[in-house]
């Protein structure tokens, strides 16, 4: 397209724009909302432009300032990064609008002025991570993501939020240090941190394996894979709603993205089937454990947070399912589609849950009866997001689950297939647990706070996007193919 000038460095803009926005919203307090929204739109525009470019020209490599590796900082964009950037932009866009409408900030105004700078800073760091081409810069961005998230979690200043933020910070730092140690060992061995050069240099051996283990543990801690998930539910449930949404939809995906990169493009030779099966097993336990916790908890936001623990488990099935080359690409695209579907649906669901929380001033599930009458749009958004999370058609979640399931069956890995199917049923259990209260008759003396429309519609639109990706599949699938570590093979000879 002509309007997207080829010479513009969109990847650089993707970091400069939110960073500028963060500084401006910090400095010019009065026009925070306006600046923030303009920034969000600018980022969305840049990501779409970049996606156009990747779609037409394939993977892109940029050297900032023309320096180039090993001295300069390189950026690399392929289909996977573009997909993550698009997801971040889509969720971020609606979270920003929700943030403008979020009336909770007006209540305990402590710290609410910091939402915009911190959130845009988080966005900068996320974009940076998805763009970076070397594992050390990945550490820096990872750490920045952690710091911004911790500050956002503690924004409300309440005791529970502070506790959750503190725990989150400690866990995050621990994870980063593990990762950093792994990077150090790799540098000692290969004298480079560039992902592509490392991929060429690294052979199977004790050094890359140790390094990958260390980095892997750090990333698993940050992405909250069972049994390292303990910090997630309190942090996600106690944060202000727009933050919860961004954390669940995006922030936990960032370390997962990095793990995918390391596993599939940097160290394909050092990975073993046993490690892949271990990751898959932990994922499977996460699905069951998270779902069971979600079935039992009494609070809506906690339920949604536990659902994140469960849904993250699905992503880790990509490791065992890609072991067999026969259906590897199906599993790969399924897992990426799952990331996309979960990001949109969970983003929408958290926003909806937060709106209900705000209207009721509490979020005990048994007190939700009749909410559909007061907040029809929000109830609908919750239901639609739930459809995608359950993996029921028509939704992106269904297509993702279908891909994973066919891959598992084609490989003859029946254990994973059963887990995939069972997880869907459990998800239906906890989603309908909420919906059944929502559809109940309203109590006569219920008292609701009025809710601004800016809090209702972003949730619905995000959930609708998750549904629409169940029909509009060609662009995401093409993106998944661009620069994928495994090319598509037909399941049948």
């Amino acid at each position, binding site marked *: 397209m002509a309007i997207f000038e080829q010479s513009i460095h969109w990847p650089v803009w993707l970091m400069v724009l939110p960073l500028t926005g963060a500084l401006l919203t910090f400095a010019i307090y009065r026009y925070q909302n306006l600046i923030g929204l303009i920034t969000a739109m600018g980022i969305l525009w840049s990501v779409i432009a970049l996606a156009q470019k990747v779609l037409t020209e394939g993977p892109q490599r940029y050297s900032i300032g023309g320096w180039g590796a090993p001295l300069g900082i390189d950026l690399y964009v392929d289909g996977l990064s573009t997909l993550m950037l698009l997801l971040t932009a889509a969720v971020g866009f609606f979270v920003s609008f929700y943030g403008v409408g979020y009336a909770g900030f007006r209540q305990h105004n402590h710290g609410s002025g910091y939402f915009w700078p911190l959130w845009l800073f988080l966005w900068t760091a996320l974009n940076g991570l998805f763009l970076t081409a070397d594992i050390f810069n990945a550490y820096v961005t990872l750490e920045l993501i952690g710091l911004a998230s911790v500050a956002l979690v503690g924004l409300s200043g309440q005791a*529970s939020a*502070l*506790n959750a933020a*503190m725990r989150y910070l400690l866990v995050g730092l*621990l994870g980063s240090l593990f990762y950093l*140690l792994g990077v150090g060992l790799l540098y000692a061995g290969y004298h480079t*941190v560039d992902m592509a050069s490392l991929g060429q240099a690294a052979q199977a051996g004790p050094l890359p394996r140790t390094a990958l283990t260390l980095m892997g543990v750090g990333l698993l801690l940050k992405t909250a894979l069972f049994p390292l998930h303990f910090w997630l539910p309190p942090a996600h449930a106690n944060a202000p709603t727009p933050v919860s949404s961004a954390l669940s939809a995006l922030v936990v995906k960032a370390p997962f993205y990095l793990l995918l990169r390391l596993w599939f493009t940097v160290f394909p030779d050092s990975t073993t089937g046993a490690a892949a099966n271990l990751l898959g097993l932990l994922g499977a336990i996460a699905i069951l454990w998270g779902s069971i916790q979600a079935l039992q908890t009494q609070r809506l936001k906690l339920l949604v947070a536990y659902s994140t623990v469960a849904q993250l488990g699905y992503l880790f099935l990509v490791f065992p399912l890609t072991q067999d080359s026969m259906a590897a690409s199906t599993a790969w695209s399924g897992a990426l589609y799952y990331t996309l579907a979960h990001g949109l649906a969970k983003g929408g669901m958290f926003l909806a849950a937060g709106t209900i929380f705000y209207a009721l001033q509490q979020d005990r599930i048994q007190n939700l009866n009749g909410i559909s009458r007061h907040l029809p749009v929000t109830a609908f958004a919750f239901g639609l997001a739930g459809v995608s999370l359950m993996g029921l058609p028509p939704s992106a979640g269904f297509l993702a689950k279908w891909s994973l399931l066919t891959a598992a069956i084609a490989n003859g890995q029946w254990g994973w297939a059963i887990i995939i199917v069972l997880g869907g049923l459990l998800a239906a259990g906890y989603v309908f647990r909420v919906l059944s209260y929502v559809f109940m008759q309203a109590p006569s003396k219920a008292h609701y706070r009025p809710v601004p429309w800016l809090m209702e519609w972003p949730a619905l639109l995000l959930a609708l996007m998750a549904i629409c990706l169940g029909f509009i599949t060609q662009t995401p699938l093409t993106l998944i193919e661009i620069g994928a570590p495994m090319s598509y093979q037909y399941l049948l000879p």
Partner: protein
Amino acid sequence: MIFTPALLYILTGIGLFILGLYALFVHSHLLRKILALNIMASGVFLVYVAAAYRSPEAISDPVPQAMVLTGIVVASASMLLGLALAARVKAKTGRTELDDGSPSE
């Protein structure tokens, strides 16, 4: 494997890392936890500095040193945030430890 000075530093760094990890799990006081993380970070940085060593004659590699500098900046920022948060937790709850971690129902 030849026992070079670089390897000595690397092993020391890893030792510090493990020491800090142990302290992080054992102590419940927030300040001690933050200090433990600091020690772990120092261990990691030591590994980087050692990785810069090439041979007795050659100039050492500048890249890991640049990375350590970056790392120190990031780490000190994190520690500051940690200290600030710990102070807030103390002010709000009167405790210097985390609660038991079970999410409030």
